[in-house]
């Protein structure tokens, strides 16, 4: 449903790492960002989040996934070994803390705290859309 709202051009969707489950989770975030360097951010995201393949939370698993996605494995490996995107992840974490995030998943709609359910989130999106239209109309 959120994808449809995004597809309509009404909203964009941003995923931000908020690490609360420790090193394995942080590594998955790091690997995802390194995959993002080669255009495979969402492939890694889906693999980690939706399919719950815990084995890919390891270095070997991430490299295996990179091979499967036909990435430049040497470049990917260098990226994760050097933790090249650690700063980016840290910034997301800090932004989340600044936004008042204290658990995951946590949503924000135009910076305002979002609901816990999909329906609540969509209602907020509609309300924000109406407010935008009012502003443009007025």
């Amino acid at each position, binding site marked *: 449903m*959120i*994808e449809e*709202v*995004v*597809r309509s*051009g*009404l*909203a*964009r*969707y*941003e*995923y*931000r*790492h*908020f*690490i*609360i*489950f*420790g090193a*394995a*989770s942080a590594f*998955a*975030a790091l690997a*995802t*960002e390194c995959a*993002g*360097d*080669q*255009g495979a*951010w*969402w*492939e890694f*995201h*889906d693999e*980690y*989040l939706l399919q719950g393949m815990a084995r890919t*939370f390891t270095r070997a698993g991430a490299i295996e996934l990179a091979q499967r996605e036909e990435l430049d494995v040497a470049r990917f490996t260098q990226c994760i070994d050097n933790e*090249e995107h650690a700063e980016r992840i840290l910034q*997301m974490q800090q932004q*989340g803390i600044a*936004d008042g*995030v204290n658990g*995951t*998943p*946590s*949503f*924000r*709609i*135009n*910076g305002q705290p*979002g609901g816990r359910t999909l329906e609540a*989130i969509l209602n907020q*999106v509609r309300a*924000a*859309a109406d407010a*935008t239209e009012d502003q443009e109309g007025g």
Partner: protein
Amino acid sequence: MMVLKISLVIATVALLLSACSSDADEPQLTQSNPTTQAQQTQTESATAYVAGQSESVQDERESEPPAQASPAEQAEQTTAEASEAQPDAVAQAQQQAAAPESAQPQQAEQEQPSTDDEPEPQAMVGQIIESGHRAGLIANRHVVGDPDAPIVITEYSDFL
């Protein structure tokens, strides 16, 4: 840097000698040498900068701006430092030769944007997701959809 300093010392000595000489044309020729060397140094720096920029862009298109700017800035600083360190006589000599000199730094500056002619790095901006329930949507890393969309849905999450 050492070459530049040595050149400046030579230039200073040459200028002092030339001041004692009755021939007016010769000092100008001598004076032009250090300036030319300084320009060559600057041009070499600029060339190295272009090559470095090319690599950094290919490696990471979100590379930090200071990495791109610093070599050029260093080159400018080098030139500025050299100007400050020069004795007045050498500075005057440079001013006398300013007309032909002014063209060369411009050439160096014009060479820098040549990276625009290079093939763009693999663009990750606006990449279309090919599979899954987001298929067809434009994504830039963790952001999906129109970057100018009026509403931003942000999800903070953890993979575990």
